[in-house]
C-alpha cells in the first residue's frame, strides 16, 4: 500500500469531532459583539453594557469624521508627491477610535503603522505621524509624552514590546494597562505568538487588539488561519472576543472591559475587531488585482461613520448645525495638515549621526566629522 492511499484511508476513517471539542472549538458560529447595527439601531449585549451620554456619542462621531478626514488628506498628499507612502485606515476608524477612547491617560498603546485613529485619541499631533511617511524621520515623537509608542513596521514585533511594558507595570504595582495593536496577517508571526505566551504566563496587563481587516496586502485571512482569530486566545489560556470592528460603541465597551480585566490582575485579553480595509494596503498597492468590488461594496454598507450618524439623527441627538460644525472643523484640520506637511523642512544630513547611540561612540563621531568636512569642502569651493 502506498503512503498516499494510507493517508486517504486514514482520513476516511477519521472519527467525528467529539461534542466536548466541538463546543469549545472549530464548528460553533463565531459570536460578534455588536451594540450599534449598520442601520444605526442601538442593541444591548448582556456582557458588555454601555451607557453613553449624547455628548459622548457626538464626540465619538466627531473623532471618526476627523480621523477619516486626516487619513484622506494624507492619501491626497501622497498622490501630490508630498509623502513617499501612506497606509490608509479607511474603514477601520471605529475599531481605532473605539479602542483608543477606552484607554485611560496612564494606559499605553503600541501601534503598527496604521493606527492613526488611536494616535488621534491619544492626542498625538497628526503631523507627527506624517514625518516618517514624508521621510524626514522614522517617527521621532516622544512615546512617553502621550503613552503612544512609535509606529512599528516589522509585522508583529511591537506586541512583544507591549508585553514587556505590561510586565513592567505589574512590577511597579501600577494599575495601568497596555494595548498591543496588530492585524490578521501579524497573527501568523512568531513574535505575536511569543507575546501571547509571555503575557499569559506572567499575567501581564495587556490587551491584544487585532484588527482583522480581512486582507494582509493580497492575502485573505484564510491564508493565516483556519479558525476565527479570537479563538487563538483559548490555546494560550486567556479570553478572546470578536467584536464588530465597524461599531465604535462595541469596540469602546469591549476594550474598556478588557483593559479593566487586565489592569485588575486577570491577565491578557485578545480582541478581534472584525472590520475591513476599504482602501489599498498602502498607496503603493493595487487591490483590484486580488479582490472583488462586490466585497468592498458589501462592507461599505457597514460603514462605521454612517451608522453612528444614522443613530444620532434617528434619536434626535444631533442637528444639522452639529454636523455642519464637524464638517467645518474637518476642513480646518485638512488645511492644517496640508500646510504642516508642505512646510515640513528636510532635516540637516547630520541627523544621520545624531541618535545612533545615547553615549559617545568613536566610529560614529569620526564619520560625522568626516562627513561635515566633506560637505564643507563644497561650500569652500574645493570640491566643485
Amino acid at each position: 500500500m502506498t503512503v498516499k492511499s494510507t493517508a486517504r484511508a486514514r482520513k476516511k476513517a477519521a472519527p467525528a469531532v467529539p461534542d466536548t471539542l466541538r463546543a469549545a472549538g472549530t464548528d460553533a458560529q463565531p459570536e460578534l459583539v455588536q451594540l450599534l447595527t449598520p442601520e444605526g439601531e442601538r442593541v444591548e449585549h448582556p456582557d458588555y453594557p454601555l451607557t453613553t451620554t449624547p455628548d459622548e456619542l457626538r464626540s465619538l462621531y466627531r473623532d471618526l469624521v476627523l480621523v477619516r478626514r486626516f487619513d484622506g488628506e494624507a492619501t491626497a498628499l501622497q498622490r501630490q508627491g508630498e509623502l513617499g507612502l501612506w497606509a490608509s485606515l479607511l474603514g477601520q476608524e471605529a475599531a481605532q477610535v473605539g479602542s483608543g477612547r477606552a484607554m485611560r491617560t496612564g494606559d499605553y498603546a503600541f501601534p503598527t503603522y496604521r493606527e492613526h485613529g488611536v494616535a488621534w485619541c491619544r492626542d498625538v499631533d497628526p503631523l507627527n505621524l506624517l514625518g516618517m511617511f514624508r521621510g524626514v524621520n522614522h517617527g521621532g515623537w516622544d512615546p512617553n509624552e502621550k503613552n503612544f509608542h512609535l509606529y512599528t513596521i516589522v509585522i508583529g514585533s511591537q506586541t512583544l514590546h507591549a508585553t514587556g511594558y505590561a510586565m513592567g507595570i505589574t512590577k511597579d504595582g501600577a494599575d495601568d494597562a497596555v494595548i498591543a495593536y496588530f492585524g490578521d496577517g501579524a497573527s501568523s508571526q512568531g513574535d505575536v505568538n511569543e507575546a501571547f505566551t509571555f503575557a499569559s504566563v506572567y499575567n501581564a496587563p495587556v490587551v491584544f487588539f487585532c484588527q482583522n481587516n480581512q486582507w494582509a496586502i493580497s492575502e485573505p485571512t484564510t491564508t493565516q488561519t483556519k479558525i476565527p482569530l479570537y479563538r487563538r486566545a483559548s490555546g494560550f489560556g486567556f479570553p478572546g472576543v470578536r467584536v464588530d470592528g465597524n461599531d465604535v460603541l462595541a469596540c469602546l465597551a469591549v476594550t474598556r472591559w478588557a483593559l479593566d480585566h487586565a489592569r485588575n490582575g486577570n491577565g491578557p485579553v485578545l480582541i478581534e475587531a472584525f472590520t475591513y480595509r476599504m482602501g489599498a494596503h498602502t498607496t503603493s498597492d493595487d487591490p483590484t488585482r486580488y479582490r472583488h468590488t462586490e466585497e468592498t461594496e458589501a462592507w461599505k454598507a457597514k460603514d462605521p461613520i454612517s451608522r453612528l450618524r444614522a443613530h444620532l439623527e434617528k434619536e434626535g441627538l444631533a442637528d444639522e448645525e452639529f454636523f455642519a460644525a464637524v464638517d467645518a472643523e474637518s476642513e480646518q484640520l485638512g488645511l492644517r495638515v496640508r500646510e504642516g506637511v508642505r512646510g515640513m523642512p528636510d532635516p540637516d544630513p547630520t541627523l544621520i549621526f545624531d541618535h545612533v547611540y545615547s553615549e559617545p561612540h568613536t566610529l560614529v563621531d569620526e564619520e560625522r566629522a568626516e562627513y561635515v568636512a566633506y560637505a564643507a569642502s563644497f561650500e569652500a569651493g574645493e570640491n566643485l
Partner: protein
Amino acid sequence: MAGQLSIAKALNGALRKSLENDPKTLLMGEDIGKLGGVFRITDGLQKDFGEDRVIDSPLAESGIVGTAIGLALRGYRPVVEIQFDGFVYPAFDQIVSQLAKMHARALGHVKMPVTIRIPYAGGIGAVEHHSESHEAYFAHTAGLRVVTPSNPHDAHWMLRQAIESDDPVIFLEPKRRYWDKGEVGDAPDLGMHDARIVRPGTDATLIAYGPMVKVCLEAAAAAEEDGRRLEVVDLRSLSPVDFTTLEDSVKRTGRAVVVHEAPVFLGMGAELAARLTEKCFYHLEAPVLRVGGYYAPYPPSRVEEAFLPDLDRVLDAVDRALAY
C-alpha cells in the same frame, strides 16, 4: 576583591552587584533561576533577589529580547541571557531592527539600556549551534555596542559597565574560558571600549579578543624562545574599536596579525586589516594577516581543533608576516 576568581564567578559577582545597586536592574533568560543558568553564571541570584528580578523565561529568544525592550521602555534595565550563541538568531529581528534602532527611531527620546549576554565560541566539544562566533553580525549593526572580555577582571568590570550603559550592549562571554581564574581588581582600570596591551613586544602585534587572547599569549611566550618579541593586544571592544591603541602598537611593530575564531571572510579581522592598512600604511613592513575559522559551518567537535586557530597557526602567520 582579593583572591583568584573564575570568569564565571566574576560575572556572577558583577550581576549580583548590579542587582544590589539598582532596583531597576532585572535578569531574564532560560533556566537562569533555580538552575543558575546552564553555565551557572546566575547561580544563587534568584534565591537572593527573588523571582521578580531574576526571571526564568519561556523558551523563546525573540520573546526574551522583545519583552526586554518593553521593560526598558517602562524604565527597567534588563540583562538577558541567551543560552548559547547559536540560539540568538530567533531574536535577530528584535536585536538588529528593534533594539539597535529604537533610540534613533525616537530621535533620542527613549534609551535602550539592555544588556544581552551570550556565551560564544567553541573549543568545548559541544554539539551543533553551541560553538559559534557571530560577533561580526552585531558589530556590523550601528546602535549596538559589542564587547567581549578575556579574563576575570575584565569580565566583572566590563559587565558592570555594560549594564550601566544607556545603550544596548551585546556582551559576548568566551565560554571555554569560564573556568579560567585570575585576580579581579577593586575598580575598573579601563573604559568599556578601551583595548589593553596584555604583553608588550617589538616585532609584531597580535590582535585578539575573547577566547583567542590566551592562545595569542601562549604564542607570544613560545615565540620569545625563538627570540621574537610579540606584542599582544586584547581588543575587548568590537564596537567601537579602540583604533588609537591598535594604531600606536602597529606603528611601533610594523606588523600585525589578527586572530579570531570566527570565519576569516568578512570577519572582524577584515575590518581591522583594512583600517590598519589605511592608518599605518607607511609603517607597515608586511600586509596585516588574519588567522581564523574557515568559511564553513562550525564543524563536528571531533575536528574542531582543525577549525580553531591555535598556537601553531598563529606562529605560522607571524612567520609569514616576518618573512616580508
